């Protein structure tokens, strides 16, 4: 425990990286995943199949292997992110960080796509048929009937995916981003005697972060619930 209390600045910096990874990859994976979902449920058969293949491949690959692709294999084919070099105070966003964000995004987007698709599938066919029957055009059917219901149904699985992403950011610690897991590992390495205190303090912060995300998801779900 002492080593954690003596190095609170390092702990804070580590969790800043964790939260940054989570936020950036979270937003990007939502954007990319929505694009994928649009292709997945869209009318063009080829794109359906292509996204389905992408989702199957990525979902069944361990995140570690995806990270190996971008961090270790990527540079061999010229996939480097050397152009990213941002420094804000103590926080340095480098090519390593970017590669990890890209890997997390690629991995999480597949799950986002599936969550959104399950939302669309949750809307009963009769809803769309009724909307068409009263003469709503395509845009109206989507905007007023199908998408609002689909999005509500997708909130809980999306929250699950984002919580998983928060926990998955720890894997980036293996590949040189000095986030929470990296810090916890190096503390444990230098003070093995204090391993329980170190584990508990980092774990409790993680539980806290997870609870924040799940609180917001619950709020959204409650606010958008239809009677």
């Amino acid at each position, binding site marked *: 425990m002492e080593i954690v209390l003596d190095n609170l600045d390092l702990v804070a910096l580590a969790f800043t990286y964790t939260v940054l990874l989570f936020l950036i990859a979270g937003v990007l994976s939502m954007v990319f995943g929505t694009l994928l979902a649009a292709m997945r*449920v869209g*009318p*063009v*058969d*080829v*794109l359906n199949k*292509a996204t389905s293949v992408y989702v*199957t*491949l990525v979902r*069944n*690959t*361990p*995140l*570690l*292997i995806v990270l*190996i*692709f971008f961090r*270790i*294999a990527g540079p*061999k*084919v*010229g996939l480097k992110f050397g152009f990213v070099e941002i420094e804000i105070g103590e926080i340095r966003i480098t090519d390593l960080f970017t590669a990890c964000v890209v890997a997390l995004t690629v991995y999480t987007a597949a*799950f986002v796509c599936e*969550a959104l698709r399950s939302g*669309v*599938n949750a809307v*009963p*066919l009769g809803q*769309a048929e009724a909307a*068409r029957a009263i003469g709503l055009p*395509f845009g109206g059917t*989507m905007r007023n009937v*199908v998408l609002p219901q689909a999005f509500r*149904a997708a909130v*809980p*699985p999306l*929250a*699950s*995916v984002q*919580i*998983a992403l928060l*926990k*998955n950011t*720890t*894997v980036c610690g*293996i590949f040189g981003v000095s986030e929470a*897991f990296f810090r916890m590992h190096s503390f*444990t390495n230098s003070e*093995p005697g204090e*391993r329980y205190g170190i*584990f508990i303090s*980092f*774990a409790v912060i*993680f*539980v806290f972060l*997870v*609870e924040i995300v*799940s609180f917001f*998801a*619950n709020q959204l779900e409650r606010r958008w619930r239809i009677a």
Partner: protein
Amino acid sequence: MPANVLFDSPGPATIARHRIYTVLAVIGLIGVLAFVVWRLYANGQLEYELWEPFLTPAYIEALLVDGLLVTLEMAFSAVLLAVVFGLIFGVGKLSDHAWISWPCWAVVEFFRAVPVLLLMTLVFYSYGVNHGEGGAYWTVVLSLMVYNGAVLAEVFRAGIQAVPHGQAEAAYAVGMRKTQVMNIIMLPQAVKIMLPAIISQCVVALKDTSLGYVVAAPGLTAVGRLIYNQFENQVPTAIVLAGMYITVNLLLTLAATWAQKKFVGEKKPLEVSAVGHLDDGRAV
């Protein structure tokens, strides 16, 4: 009749338009694929020497026996132990006594929210370091047992609650005691509902065995690491490793779908959220 909630059946003009989109999409996809292959080729990643290890019997054997087999062993021991762990805590959560249900709830919620890597580090420094070769192996199995056990505890709870109430009421009515109701009536029916979810959890466990990388545990990823460190063929190794994981996971998914059809039927598969109190979602 439209088969899709999003779109009406297309008319002739729409079909023509979709045909144009299809052509454009095919061109785009071929372009992306060609770009990837060209990048691989231009950087010499398609050279025979880099792929040679994967055509050499000794390395294939290492990948399959020291890699895949060990990984499968770790994943299945972890899931078997996790089933026991999950059963104890899942049933414990449903207990009528607060002094049993509350600690069970706390343990399950805690370990579902904590990243596996943190757990692995703790187990490794508490146990793995002093146990030589097998230390890292059991570190992975034990940490995955706790994490997947916590997830499965939720599955068990949801599965038991999915058994119709009348079953328990009827059992009480014929004079069974609480333990009997749980053991003879609820659990046997719940297991059928839970089987697909348990098999799906094997996929999660199998993927997570790769995290043993951090404690230098054996398995597929470890063998891959040895190969690419020796031959400097990172790209081919990553492709082969991913291919192997994907194949095994797809087979497991097939088994889960089969179990779903055979034991549960048309009803919605059992789903529990990764953490928190959301009522839908799937552990990733």
